[in-house]
């Protein structure tokens, strides 16, 4: 997949930073007036990527078919959004109790430069042990983002960089079909029932 240059207008513009976008999974080339169904995450059977978890295991989307699955995109260098999402998810899993043992739960990094398997393992050790962290080549992460219709972009910032990325948590049924999205920082009163519905 070719790396595209693009700018998300109205986002990150305050910093005035030069935005240089990484692959945006083909999302941006789509006409937004097309039918909404076109923008829904694909079923796992139609996705194609190969990533590595923090324990060194290779993970492909077809591995997730057979169990309900929860996936989100993030990066460990962000002190606000990602710990909040991980903390939310850890709380949901705790509330679901043993039902959560049947779930695949994965964070896919959008910052493979810094988020190696080792870094992910270190970071995730502070959260619910059922959450796995996935990294890989930029190309594979773009392929994953494309399947989820997720987006991410790298922004230069103060001699460093930060990542903008899709913030919602994706839920899939055990047949591998997309179920729903839990919005960023959504109240657990809504989040936990959504997960229960996906578990079925």
């Amino acid at each position: 997949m070719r790396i595209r240059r693009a700018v998300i207008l109205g986002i990150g513009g305050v910093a005035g930073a030069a935005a240089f976008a990484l692959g945006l999974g083909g999302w941006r080339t789509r006409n937004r007036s097309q039918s909404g169904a076109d923008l829904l995450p694909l079923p796992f059977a139609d996705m194609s990527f190969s990533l590595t978890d923090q324990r060194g295991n290779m993970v492909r989307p077809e591995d997730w078919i057979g169990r309900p699955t929860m996936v989100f995109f993030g990066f460990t260098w962000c002190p606000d959004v990602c710990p909040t999402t991980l903390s939310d998810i850890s709380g949901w899993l705790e509330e679901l109790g043993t039902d959560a043992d049947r779930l695949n739960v994965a964070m896919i990094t959008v910052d493979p430069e810094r988020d190696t398997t080792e870094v992910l393992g270190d970071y995730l050790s502070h959260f619910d042990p059922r959450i796995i962290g996935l990294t890989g080549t930029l190309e594979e992460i773009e392929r994953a983002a494309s399947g989820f219709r997720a987006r991410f972009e790298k922004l230069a910032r103060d001699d460093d960089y930060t990542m903008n990325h899709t913030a919602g948590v994706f839920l899939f049924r055990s047949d591998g079909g997309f179920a729903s999205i839990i919005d960023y920082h959504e109240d657990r009163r809504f989040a936990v029932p959504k997960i229960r519905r996906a578990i079925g």
Partner: protein
Amino acid sequence: MKITVFTALILTLASPTLACETVTSGEMTIENAWSRATIGANRPAVFYVAITNAGSSGDALIGIATPAASMPMLHQTVVTEDIASMPHAMSIPIAAGQSVQLAPGGYHGMLMGLTEALKVGDNFPMTLTFQNAGDITINVEVLSIRAEGPDCESDGQ
């Protein structure tokens, strides 16, 4: 029942001590200053606080400074069309009679260039600079990386 579980979780993650301190200077009250532990000193840390302006004129938080980090700045997490970004906040308005929270998922202090890793139980001073109220310093308590905030509701309510 669910609320009980949630409260119990928070209690185990946050200690109701330093982060519950209140500093008042003139019409400005600052409280619930907390941060999250970091893994190493290379990653940026975060700073959260609640600010209340009891005065009759508006003010604004225009900067933060701390010996804990060489490059602290104000950010605002914004989620637009489900994309999370965190642009700089040049100035955070604190309207007359209003409270503003720097809290997970919104305004936050972003502490780049950490002097050392932040560990649970550590604390460090943070000086907040207001357009009108000037400088006010508060102690920031470092909570768990999983913390969503200090539990300070024990007195009163």
